[in-house]
């Protein structure tokens, strides 16, 4: 038998790809309704904000929004916010639910006893999340171009995508913390739905940060999603370069270099706690 320390890079990569394939293909084709929902959900996410905006504005341009942000076109403003939040939520669900869902599916014990590091397991989920999110980004951008007449500076799209890549990594630590928390406290649906609602409120997805009360603005600025939303708007709508987004990138980098190791340690701590309490496999 091959000693475990002789494992090559390819051997590390293999389980990541297998987990991503399982998440993307096997589990979705087993439950075909999920494929339908995956494609429709981002549209259902963005439309209510656009329709509500239309109802209060009677059109698409807002003088108040322009005064606060320098952007007058409401659909353009909202679309960027919803792109970032929809991929953040997708990742949050896939990562946080990574272990809990296995428990529901009855595959928890098999996966847990596999000689694969949990970090690798989560990387597989991250990869699946990146694939889904890429589809979301393309779909929402197409919606923007063909239906909403959005006004983007397309030359800044690569800058925005670089920012999204950083957001993925920043969210990884976030996902590890929540997943660890759910190992002990269960009730995953409730907690994640609640987080969805809370993040939707705090992150300036459909409105400028300035309309939030001051204490909420401060909390919001500590979130990686807020930084990614603001930076993406600056780049894709205002045409600024990624080099001018130093503040936002610094917060994202802090999440990557601090939250990932801390998140993994927290996950391991909660895993041990769940084992000690004997609740690892419980519902």
């Amino acid at each position, binding site marked *: 038998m091959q000693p475990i320390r002789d494992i090559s890079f390819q051997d590390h990569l293999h389980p990541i790809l297998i987990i991503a394939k399982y998440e993307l293909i096997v589990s979705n084709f*087993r*439950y*075909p*309704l*999920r494929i*339908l*929902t*995956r494609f*429709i*959900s981002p549209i*259902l*996410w963005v*439309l*209510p*904000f656009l*329709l*509500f*905006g*239309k*109802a*209060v*504005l*009677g*059109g698409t341009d*807002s003088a*108040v*929004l322009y005064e*606060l942000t320098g952007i007058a076109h*409401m659909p353009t403003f909202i679309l960027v916010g919803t792109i970032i939040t929809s991929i953040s939520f997708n990742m949050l669900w896939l990562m946080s639910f990574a272990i809990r869902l296995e428990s*529901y*599916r*009855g595959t928890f014990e098999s996966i847990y006893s596999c000689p694969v590091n949990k970090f690798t397991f989560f990387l597989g989920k991250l990869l699946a999340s990146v694939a889904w999110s890429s589809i979301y980004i393309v779909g929402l951008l197409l919606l923007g171009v063909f239906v909403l007449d959005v006004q983007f500076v397309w030359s800044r799209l690569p800058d925005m995508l670089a920012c999204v890549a950083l957001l993925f990594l920043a969210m990884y630590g976030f996902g590890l913390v929540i997943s660890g928390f759910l190992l002990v406290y269960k*009730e995953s*649906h*409730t*907690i994640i*739905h*609640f987080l969805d*609602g*809370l993040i*939707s*409120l705090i992150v300036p997805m*459909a*409105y*400028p940060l*300035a*309309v*939030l009360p001051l204490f909420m603005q401060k909390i919001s600025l500590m979130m990686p999603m807020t930084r990614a939303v603001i930076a993406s708007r600056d780049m894709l709508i205002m045409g600024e370069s990624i080099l001018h987004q130093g503040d936002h990138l610094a917060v994202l980098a802090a999440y990557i270099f601090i939250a990932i190791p801390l998140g993994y340690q927290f996950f391991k701590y909660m895993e041990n706690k769940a084992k000690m309490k004997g609740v690892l496999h419980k*519902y």
Partner: protein
Amino acid sequence: MYRMMSNWSRISLELRTIRYTLKKEIKLWQRYPSRMLFLVVMPFLTILTLYFQGMGLVGGTESTYFEEFAGTQDYLVFIILGSAVFIFVSTAIWGVGNSIRREQMMGTLESIWVVPTSKLTIFVGVALFDGLFSSYVAFMQLLITSLILPVNLIDLRIFVVIGIAFLLIFSLYGLGFFFTGLVLIYKEVEDFTNMINSAIRLITPVSYPLSVLPAPLAFIALFIPLTYALQAIRDYMGLGDYGPIYQYIGLLLLFDLIFIIFGSLFFRYAEKSAKRRGVIATH
């Protein structure tokens, strides 16, 4: 033995089943108290999100354009009432609609399935609990919003609002039976349920009037009883002129009948189909 009983004895037995189902649902909620907090707080987060969006777009809680569409300038009260009634929809779809899946996840489906009582009686118990629970949550929401936001919705008219919402819930339970049937056929329908929940919110006048919707979506809304319940409630509360209230009550009763019959028939079909394929207990 059941066949030899008198009609009254049978009814008494069915009522006892409903009482025990109600008791079981209460125990479950006591087991997971955070769900209660979630249901009370979550709709409030949605209202706040739209409140901030309105503030960011028009700088206040009133809009003259909104009056052109909805007959009232006050979009905040419009949304609060819509969200309070929508709680009944959410609870019915998630409660009755996913009750089978929930039992399956908890490992109690088989025990419940072999109990010598009609499945529909069990669902009536779940539905009754959902109705009472939704009324409580809707009342709490109106109370909290009146305390925190610049609106006052706490007066005796609330009881009429909840009364109209109760007329709505029978049709929602028909929808819930339909979902239960879907669960038997397709199994993991959490994502699908979430999608239908969002889709109903999108195409009915919960957060904005029907007139801002594209014509095909507004046409679909005419076949959803929530549309009429909301119009009746808003007309009664003086938020726009939607015509005589008794017309809406008649329509809601008609929808109740159609949805209950259709939902029950679909459930029976799905149950038979699942038994024939031997997939009742599979995940």
